[in-house]
């Protein structure tokens, strides 16, 4: 068995009964023990993918192979998978202990009561909910319910843990805390985990790698930093990063890249980084806000509309050729709204995208 391909999803497809194709030939693999984030905007097919892996939905094409065996004809209860639902899906009439024990009281994995209780206690300790054992889920806070549902998912020691936006019902501070806890926990247990989220920051902070979805297609399957630094296409560049990337409409003619009020000779770009021929025509030049530096020799002369503080940095907002753009500078550099400044682009860090979104540089 290949540890690098513990989970293998091959050309997975899903067309719903109403004819909507939610997943269009998706393939990826997950290394044993990794925590992988499925990231993407709402409606891109993350839950659909997860449900197919769990067996709650039947794919209309492709295959799911875990540990060398296809799961397609295996019932959900026999897939040996743990699932943490977005709304926790705890059984409201049972106590926390009964909820956590439930998987060991049904089906073919039934265990004697005292043994089940011991195992449940162990995982409740791991998730810090021992004191809540006799409470009903209705009396718990969101974060506590989340821990209960994680304990319940882990208690059968499944080969895979699936989590569908497990943090989206929590407040911001708790989200930060629990996401750390989740990462530590799954690493401690050593379980291979798929974690669905639409929050890029969450994905970047806890994922060993990130699979970015859009419209039922994988846009990029990479380490977080590569998604940020080397986006495959315009969608990835726009989706990842906060504040969002700046996009300038440009034309390439005579070995020159010309935008509104600025011009960059093509020879200034690193020739090894081109992914194809740069034919004349329309492109989008994209650059992350932190790669615009204040400089008197800058290409861009702008008037600042607004300034926003985010922690130790300052976001300068300005309008270029009718579109809003941003630059990120140090807090120490005092710029006020209305100031006229010049920005220099860090040309090592610009991207050129074709109109269809394909990256060319």
């Amino acid at each position: 068995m290949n540890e690098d391909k513990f989970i293998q999803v091959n050309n997975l497809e899903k067309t719903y009964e109403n004819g909507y194709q939610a997943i269009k030939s998706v393939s990826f693999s997950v290394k044993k023990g990794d925590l992988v984030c499925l990231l993407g905007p709402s409606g891109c097919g993350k839950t659909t993918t997860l449900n197919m892996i769990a067996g709650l939905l039947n794919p209309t094409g492709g295959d799911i192979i875990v540990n060398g065996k296809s799961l397609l004809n295996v019932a959900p209860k026999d897939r040996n998978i743990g699932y943490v639902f977005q709304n926790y899906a705890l059984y409201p009439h049972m106590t926390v202990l009964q909820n956590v024990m439930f998987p060991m009281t049904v089906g073919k994995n039934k265990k004697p009561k005292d043994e089940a209780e011991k195992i449940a206690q162990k995982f409740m300790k791991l998730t810090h909910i021992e004191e809540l054992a006799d409470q009903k889920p209705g009396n718990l806070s969101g974060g506590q319910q989340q821990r209960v549902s994680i304990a319940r998912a882990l208690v059968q020691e499944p080969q895979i843990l699936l989590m569908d936006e497990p943090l989206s019902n929590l407040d911001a501070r708790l989200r930060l805390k629990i996401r750390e806890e989740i990462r530590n926990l799954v690493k401690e247990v050593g379980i291979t985990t798929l974690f669905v989220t639409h929050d890029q920051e969450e994905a970047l902070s806890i994922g060993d790698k990130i699979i970015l979805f859009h419209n039922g297609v994988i846009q990029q399957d990479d380490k977080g930093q590569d998604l940020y630094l080397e986006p495959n296409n315009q969608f990835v560049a726009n989706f990842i990063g906060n504040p969002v990337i700046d996009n300038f409409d440009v034309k390439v003619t005579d070995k020159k890249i010309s935008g509104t009020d600025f011009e960059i000779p093509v020879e200034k770009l690193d020739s090894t980084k081109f992914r194809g021929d740069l034919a004349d025509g329309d492109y989008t030049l994209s650059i992350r806000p932190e790669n615009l530096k204040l400089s008197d020799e800058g290409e861009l002369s702008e008037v600042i509309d607004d300034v926003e503080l985010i922690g130790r940095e300052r976001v300068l907002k300005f309008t270029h050729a009718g579109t809003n753009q941003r630059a990120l500078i140090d807090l120490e550099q005092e710029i006020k709204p209305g100031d006229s400044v010049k920005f220099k682009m860090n040309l090592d860090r610009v991207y050129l995208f074709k109109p269809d979104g394909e990256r060319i540089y």
Partner: protein
Amino acid sequence: MKKKKLRWGMIFVYLFIGIFGIITVFPFIYMILGGLMSYQETTTIPPTLIPKTLRWSNYQKVFEQAPFARYFLNTFITAATTTIVTLFTSILGAFAMTNLKFKGKGFIQLIFLSLLMVPGEAIIFTNYNTIAHLGLLNTYLGLVLPFLTSIFYMYYLQSYFTAISPTIYKAAMIDGASDWEYIWKILVPMSKGGLITVALLSFISGWNSFLWPLLVTNEDKMRLLNNGLAAFASDAGAQTQLQLAAATLTVVPVLIVYFIFRKQIIRGVVRNDLKA
């Protein structure tokens, strides 16, 4: 100003409720009191409301003149059997309709809905023929057989089951529970209110049934309370006070059930026990 208006409104509402309450309850009260009167007291004009002496001996006479104990037993057996079996079949049916996907589900649902429109009286003679052909006249089985399933109760439970988030069912599947385990360990405990309501309604309607047992039984030992009461009323001739005592006898158990389960009945009607 506004407060005063509100007060008058409330007085009107209470008056209204009070009058209707009395109209509803009066026959019951009169029945109970009448069962303790002498024959003369029940027939005088103007009518007597409060008997001079409470004649408990009326009840003794009732039990002497007809086998009411047997009627009680028969009624209890049929009402309890229909209740238990109806609950069971309705739970399974409602579960299938709520959580399972199968071919022809929409069609079956359509048929069920249209059958719901058919009043029970309309098919009572077909049912009678069936039971007669099966040779089940004057048997307990014949008494209960047509009432062991109920589309109405199934739909009623379905409304409880669909109120449970579908992810609960998914979670149970992932946890390894079979459908059978899901039904008994999750669905049923989470729908207690609905199940108690169905049980009560089914038991009460079984207890009160009249037309069907009248058709399929003619032996005295197979009679149910209501038929026994009707027969008694004609046998006892003009003994009004005994008729009222017998009527009280048949109603009291239902009243006791109402009294014990009044919270659940109200909750079942109001449906606020499913916060999830």
